[in-house]
């Protein structure tokens, strides 16, 4: 007989027989996974925000007010052929104004008093990784069709430099939280083994193999973790909705970018919970049911 035969059915039966234990396990796992989920959500949102920022143009060429659009397009074609350049975008004056209007969000009334459009048309260059921004900027500064060359904002450069370190730190903290969930599963399984000691003795007596006894515990831990992950996702979603600032922030910033909770994050959390359940289940049942206990 294969060890897994009927293991799911036996796991489900074990769970139904111990509603108190299920309550304890689900409550504690939900809280632990909610902490992990909140962290994961913030981490992923920050990563996305940083990615969005880092994908901004590496170089912006402001054109003179008098420059016709076809001149900007010719410049864009020329620069787009350079190997250092990944993408070129021409933003005419109207588009630039519209972009500013969107960034201002509810404060766009500030633009109402403007006479005409003060913004220049621009050619935005996104450079390939490793391209030297300063060398390219230097070569463009003397050209008559370019009024001003703007390189990446200094704060962004600093952010990009710090990003690698922050990613490593963030991952380390995430692993620590994940390990906490695994340890919680281990202890829950050990508690279950302790409560079912008499039942396990009987199973041992009638000739149940170690695998026959262990698999339901592992599956039970995985089921608990996945159900707890769903509950935790709901909690985090609700919490982040509460925390998201109801009033929009200036400059078009929106906290919902950081405090949004997508169903994809919920799926990632459920997958992590299943893995934690499997790892903790195997570890917990392995520690609690050593061979000499089963023989």
């Amino acid at each position, binding site marked *: *007989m294969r060890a897994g035969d009927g293991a799911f059915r036996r796991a489900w039966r074990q769970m139904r027989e111990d509603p108190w234990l299920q309550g304890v396990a689900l409550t504690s796992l939900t809280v632990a996974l909610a902490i992990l989920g909140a962290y994961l959500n913030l981490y992923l949102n920050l990563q996305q925000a940083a990615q969005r920022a880092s994908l901004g143009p590496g170089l912006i060429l402001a054109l003179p007010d008098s420059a016709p659009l076809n001149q900007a397009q010719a410049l864009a074609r020329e620069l787009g052929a350079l190997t250092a350049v990944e993408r070129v975008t021409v933003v005419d004056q109207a588009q630039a104004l519209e972009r500013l209007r969107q960034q201002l969000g509810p404060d766009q009334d500030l633009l109402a008093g403007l006479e005409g459009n003060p913004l220049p048309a621009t050619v935005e260059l996104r450079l390939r990784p490793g391209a030297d921004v300063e060398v390219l900027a230097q070569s463009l500064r003397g050209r008559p069709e370019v009024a001003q060359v703007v390189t990446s904002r200094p704060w962004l450069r600093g952010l990009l430099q710090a990003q690698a370190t922050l990613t490593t730190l963030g991952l380390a903290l995430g692993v620590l939280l994940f390990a906490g969930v695994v340890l919680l599963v281990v202890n829950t399984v050990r508690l279950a083994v302790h409560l079912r000691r008499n039942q396990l003795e*009987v*199973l041992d*007596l*009638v*000739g149940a193999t170690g695998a026959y006894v262990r698999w339901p515990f592992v599956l039970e831990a995985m089921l608990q973790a996945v159900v707890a992950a769903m509950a935790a996702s709901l909690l985090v979603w609700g919490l982040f909705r509460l925390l998201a600032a109801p009033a929009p922030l200036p400059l078009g910033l929106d906290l919902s970018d950081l405090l949004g909770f997508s169903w994809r994050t919920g799926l990632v959390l459920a997958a992590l919970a299943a893995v934690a359940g499997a790892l903790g289940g195997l570890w917990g049942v392995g520690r609690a049911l050593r061979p000499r206990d089963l023989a």
Partner: protein
Amino acid sequence: MGAMILLSRVAKRYPGRQAPALERVDLHVPPGQFVYLTGPSGAGKTTLLRLLFAAEAPSSGVVKVGGSDLGRLKQSQIPLLRRKIGVIFQDFKLIQGRSVFENVALALRVAGINGRQLPGRVEEVLRRVGLWEQARTLAGDLSGGEQQRAAVARALVGRPPLLLADEPTGNLDPDSAREVMRLILEAHGRGATVLVATHDPALLGLVQGARVVRLRAGRLEEGA
């Protein structure tokens, strides 16, 4: 003649205890024999039984059951050995929160017997021990005598060639004790080798022609 049970110079010592639980024990039980293992409390009866279903290992000597040398068995082979041995305990060892049917069926399920065969075999053995009407009753709701009959049913449902009973009537009134012994004797009549450990002399008269071996301070003597 081959042996269902063979013990050769078996000793069992526990750490921290000066006197050995078993000392130079030799025992040969041929297939189909009914054996009473008697002796006062603490004589080593339970220890000897635990050696036979590999719950413990001897400190020295050889233990063979059904031709298998238990000292040479791998950990993974022990469950397979236990499926060939029915064991009955004084305290029943039933899962209290499960029905009589489920307790008995467990012995078949762990052996991979499921599907259509299972209900029929459980019903057959429960009718034999007179518990079919209570098949859906939780084990914890049965009387002591009924619980022991359920334990006997569980021990017999796998049709094991060897039946071990450790003080099977210790917690029962005389009528229930007689009924349980009748069931054990019936299993013997179907060909099972039976070893009953008891300190109750009243039980010895219930089975005519049974062999009696006595444990005294860890040593085995033939005869009551």
